[in-house]
């Protein structure tokens, strides 16, 4: 089995930033996360000439018009969210433009369908409204627009790389930033991901895959819609799509120390691999290999991990495969698990980053967020699912976040408290 031979050094995280359905500050994010408060609501599909039932979505409260593009070109909503999250993370980290060596700063960013919302709007303008293409259509919709704007904002010269591997995109971006710092290519990175594509055409495409929780008959009942995503439940029926951006400032221990920055936590483990068997069906064996490789990278045993923020999409086959891989790696009911997608929706390219943030908030709070809305776990799953209310976990040191994507890409990250990362 291809595993890394030994553990890599921990990488410090000195700042985080968030724009999400659970709010745009850590305080609002935490409040919703630990209370299991859902941001999911019904959205009608405005597609002329096509009758479709509404879909469940988890929008972020965010005014994209307030965000100024460093390039001054119009921003896709996801890019605006990315900029806001990156600014916030850098501000927390004290990473002001001019205060670091630009050649040693890299931007690593994930998105599944960056620019999708603007691209759809552009197509509508051209085909339906007979309006012209704009001079900036290309640079607004190009998949690397978010990371390019972030790189411009901070004058990054070390790297500006985008990762598009569906639901694993931002987990991969963060992990690859860890690797670039460990390898000595750069000292500090702004890493994360963004996604905003709650537009009729994109939503209808996901609905057509039959992976969205069906809310048609109960769309008028806000409480039913809010609880429509039930990960690992016996009666699970799919997910809601959400929009978000999350950013992290990663840096080597030496770099953080030299500028007097204190890591809030460390990234200790990362692994990515591919199932290589099917475009959508997950492979428990591939997932298990990825989780084990991340443990080796972190220098940990399965029993050291005190919380797993699962991918947990609430689809029938997805949760079944994941419950199997979790039990394979950790043993039956061997680690407390929750899926927070129940409340913030499936954030696609931003999912890995937001769920890593959720895992680190568990580390900070010493409690584990519940899997909202799931009351009866699928009886065939041998996992310790946190349901009902948040669970106290005072000695929590290491938390894992896993992302298993369409296309077969698996990515697993492990975060560790400052005390826990002192080897």
């Amino acid at each position, binding site marked *: 089995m291809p595993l890394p031979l030994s553990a890599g050094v921990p990488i410090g995280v000195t700042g985080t930033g968030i724009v999400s359905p659970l709010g745009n500050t850590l305080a609002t994010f935490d409040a919703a996360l630990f209370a299991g408060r859902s941001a999911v609501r019904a959205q009608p599909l405005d597609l002329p000439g096509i009758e479709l039932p509404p879909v469940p979505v988890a929008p972020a409260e965010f005014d994209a018009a307030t965000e100024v593009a460093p390039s001054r070109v119009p921003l896709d909503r996801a890019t605006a969210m990315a900029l806001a999250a990156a600014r916030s993370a850098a501000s927390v980290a004290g990473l002001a433009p001019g205060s670091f060596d630009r050649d040693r700063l890299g931007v690593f960013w994930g998105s599944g369908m960056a620019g999708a919302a603007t691209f759809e709007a552009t197509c509508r303008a051209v085909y339906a409204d007979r309006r012209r293409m704009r*001079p900036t259509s290309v640079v607004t919709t190009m998949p690397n627009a978010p990371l390019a704007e972030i790189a411009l904002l901070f004058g990054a010269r070390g790297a500006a790389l985008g990762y598009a591997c569906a639901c694993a995109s931002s987990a991969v971006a963060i992990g690859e930033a860890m690797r670039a710092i460990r390898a000595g290519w750069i000292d500090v990175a702004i890493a994360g991901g963004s996604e905003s594509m709650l537009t009729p055409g994109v939503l209808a495409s996901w609905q057509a895959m039959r992976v969205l929780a069906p809310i048609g008959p109960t769309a008028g009942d806000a409480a039913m819609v809010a609880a429509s995503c039930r990960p690992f439940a016996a009666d699970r029926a799919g997910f809601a799509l959400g929009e978000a951006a999350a950013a992290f400032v990663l840096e080597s221990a030496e770099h953080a120390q030299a500028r007097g920055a204190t890591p809030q936590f460390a990234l200790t483990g990362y692994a990515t691999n591919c199932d290589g068997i099917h475009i959508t069906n997950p492979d428990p064996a591939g997932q298990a290999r990825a989780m084990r490789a991340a443990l080796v990278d972190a220098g940990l045993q399965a029993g050291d991990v005190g919380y797993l923020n699962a991918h947990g999409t609430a689809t029938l086959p997805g949760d079944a495969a994941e419950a199997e891989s979790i039990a394979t790696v950790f043993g039956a009911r061997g680690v407390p698990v929750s899926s927070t997608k129940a409340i913030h929706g499936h954030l696609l390219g931003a999912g890995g980053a937001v769920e890593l943030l959720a895992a680190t908030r568990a580390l900070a709070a010493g409690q584990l967020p519940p899997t909202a809305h799931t009351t009866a776990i699928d009886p065939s799953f041998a996992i310790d699912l946190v349901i009902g209310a948040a669970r106290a976990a005072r000695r929590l040191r290491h938390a894992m976040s896993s992302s298993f994507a369409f296309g077969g890409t698996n990515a697993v990250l492990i975060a560790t408290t400052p005390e826990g990362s002192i080897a």
Partner: protein
Amino acid sequence: MSSSTFATLSAVLVEQFHVDAGTVRPEATLDQLGLDSLALMEFVFAVEDRFEVRIPEDRLDPRQAGVTLAHLAQLLDEAVAARPPRNAAAA
């Protein structure tokens, strides 16, 4: 140049392109606005759409040095004046 045309130009620059209101004066040249050539093209598109006109390309190259906002407003006024009545196309 009509003052309402200039006011609309100002609003687009400040609201959509985040240009500092203090620099938006009739005698300001386009290259003084802090926008690169791409953003300038986007700005011209935006105001053309706002006024529902097209300024012929041979009348304006926004990348050319010395083009002032007053001149752009003048071109817009001319284009609006030359615009066929709204119901002409339907007739």
